[in-house]
């Protein structure tokens, strides 16, 4: 915002910092015209961002919970995503829609979802999911500079982790994944909070001599197919780990793409780790069971490893 006066921030409570303090300090530095609170009108606020972007600003709109993106979907899907195409290239919508999801905090069914899979189905949108604060800064810089509408999906469980971050972050290009941990036995493709969980699983697996390669996808659209292909072609095994419900989630799409990229190299079916097919329950013990974690990733990896292991005949 210091470098580009076209960047404005709009959303509910953004001037006060928001419930997760993501915009803390902005209105004090840039004023309440550029950091603007809105009423609870997700649809029109998204539309305002689109119109302002088409007119030359770079709006960063916040939707407090990804569960409420449903209210803005007509604007996002039917207008923002299609403006460049339908206008034959005359219009572009350089906006960023920041939001957050995830089940951790007893928000229950309407405040805990992970809906990003819907968005990769809409040609014209870009979808980013940072797994850590440093990446988030770099990816956000690129998202703001991108001439397309970008949905930037944060995770509520990751907001208050304390990290040492550079004062001047470097932009991270969209569509480039990060190899968080190298390994030769299995490729784990993870997003958001599941990157950390996958790294924990990788440590546990290493104790048994299984070396998992953990790839932080960072970007769901555009997807870094080259990094995925190179890894799975080398390891021959893949597990996709996301927090979203497994059925209809990113895992299914990636499984199909891995078939296209590396079917002849696969030694086991592609595994998926995600949430059960149910709305997020309130009760703490249930929410904790519901939420995918390192243990599920570990199980999925072991399943893939054992798929083609020769069995020692028992000695009589």
């Amino acid at each position, binding site marked *: 915002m210091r470098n580009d006066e076209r960047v*404005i921030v709009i959303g509910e409570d953004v001037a006060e910092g928001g419930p997760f303090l993501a915009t803390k300090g902005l209105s004090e530095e840039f004023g309440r*015209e*550029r950091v603007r609170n*809105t*009423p609870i*009108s997700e*649809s*029109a*606020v*998204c*539309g*305002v*961002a*689109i*119109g*302002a*972007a*088409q*007119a*030359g*600003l770079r*709006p960063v709109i916040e939707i407090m919970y990804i569960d409420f993106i449903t209210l803005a979907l*007509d*604007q996002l899907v*039917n*207008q923002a995503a299609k*403006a*460049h*195409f*339908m*206008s*034959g*290239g*005359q*219009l*572009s919508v*350089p906006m960023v829609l920041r939001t957050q999801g995830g089940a951790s905090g007893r928000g229950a069914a309407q405040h805990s979802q992970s809906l990003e899979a819907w968005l990769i189905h809409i*040609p*014209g949108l*870009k979808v980013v999911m940072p797994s850590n604060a440093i990446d988030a800064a770099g990816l956000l810089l690129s998202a703001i500079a991108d*001439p*397309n509408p970008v949905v930037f999906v944060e995770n509520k469980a990751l907001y208050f982790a304390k990290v040492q971050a550079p004062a001047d972050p470097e932009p991270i290009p969209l569509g480039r994944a990060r190899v968080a941990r190298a390994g030769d036995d299995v490729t784990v493709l993870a997003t958001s909070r599941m990157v950390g969980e996958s790294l924990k699983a990788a440590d546990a697996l290493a104790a048994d001599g299984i070396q998992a390669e953990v790839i932080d996808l960072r970007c769901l659209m555009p997807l870094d197919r080259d990094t995925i292909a190179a890894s799975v072609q080398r390891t021959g095994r893949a597990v996709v780990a996301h927090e979203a419900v497994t059925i209809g989630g990113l895992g299914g799409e990636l499984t199909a793409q891995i078939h296209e990229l590396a079917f002849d190299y696969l030694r086991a079916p592609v595994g998926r780790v995600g949430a059960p097919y149910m709305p997020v329950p309130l009760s703490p013990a249930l929410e904790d069971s519901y939420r995918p974690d390192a243990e599920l990733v570990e199980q999925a990896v072991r399943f893939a490893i054992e798929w083609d292991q020769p069995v020692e005949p028992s000695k009589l």
Partner: protein
Amino acid sequence: MARLTGKAAHDLLETIWRIRLFEERVAQLKRTVQAHGLIHLSIGGEGVAAAVCRQLRAEDAVYSGHRAHGHALAKGAAMPETMAELMGRVDGLCHGLGGSMHLVDRTHGFMGATGVVGGNLAMAVGDALCAQLQGGGRVAVVFFGDGAVQAGNFHESVNLASLWKLPVIFVCENNGMAEFTSREEHSNVGLVRDVVAPYGFDRATVDGSDVEAVWEAFGGFLRVGRRGRGPFLLECLTHRRRGHYEGDAQEYRDELADREWEQRDPLTRFQRVCLERRWVSGREVDRIQEAARAEVEAAVGFARASPMPSMELAQSLVYAS
């Protein structure tokens, strides 16, 4: 209140004739499957399109709904490229990728028609936000029908515009019909001016077939809008001569009497006014009509000569770079 002068009236009459003859030709092209898709004609709405758009500058943004041909042409979209777009050709405004309901002409500030009712009301508000932040006297205008007023988006957009006092002019063409049903089946509130009354901003309801009335009312709002203030609602009571879309059998309403139409036709009424006030002569009217007819035919020729777009071109325009 700026009164209409002879020079401006001449321009308006020309614009109205151009739209009328364009739309009648498009109706024929649609029947013969040379214009494609869901086509909604502006016949009966030319007066509002001209009276509003001809007072605007290229940098003022105009958004519109699915019935947008007249608005696009009045705002300055070139007729050959507009015709080519309706016919899906690569030399169309949008390279044939958008079509009738998604016309865009960025260079003239026609920022988009939309096929989703009320779909771009908030976008016009956003354009006005940009105008207000940047200064310079730009305004945004959005055309919509009375059917859009019942959508939640309308109330959200009007609320935001009035809360932030943005220079956006909401122009409602209230023809008493939404698709195939009359307004009284959609809302207990007959006039859109009464729907927005609680928001407390300036509004006016005029006869949409009275070009002079629309010109003056819009001009008044425009003057204040240029000082960076708003919003405004201009409700134009109009009459939709043809069906909702071309192909609509119109069984749901009575035959429109020719005499009744003559009273409500903005073209007939305004032409009579122009002749009475000696803003144009009879011979000038013939010249205007002939020039418009020739222009429409040239546009059809241009469109027919243009090839269809390729899949490669389409694929290259999914994302901006």
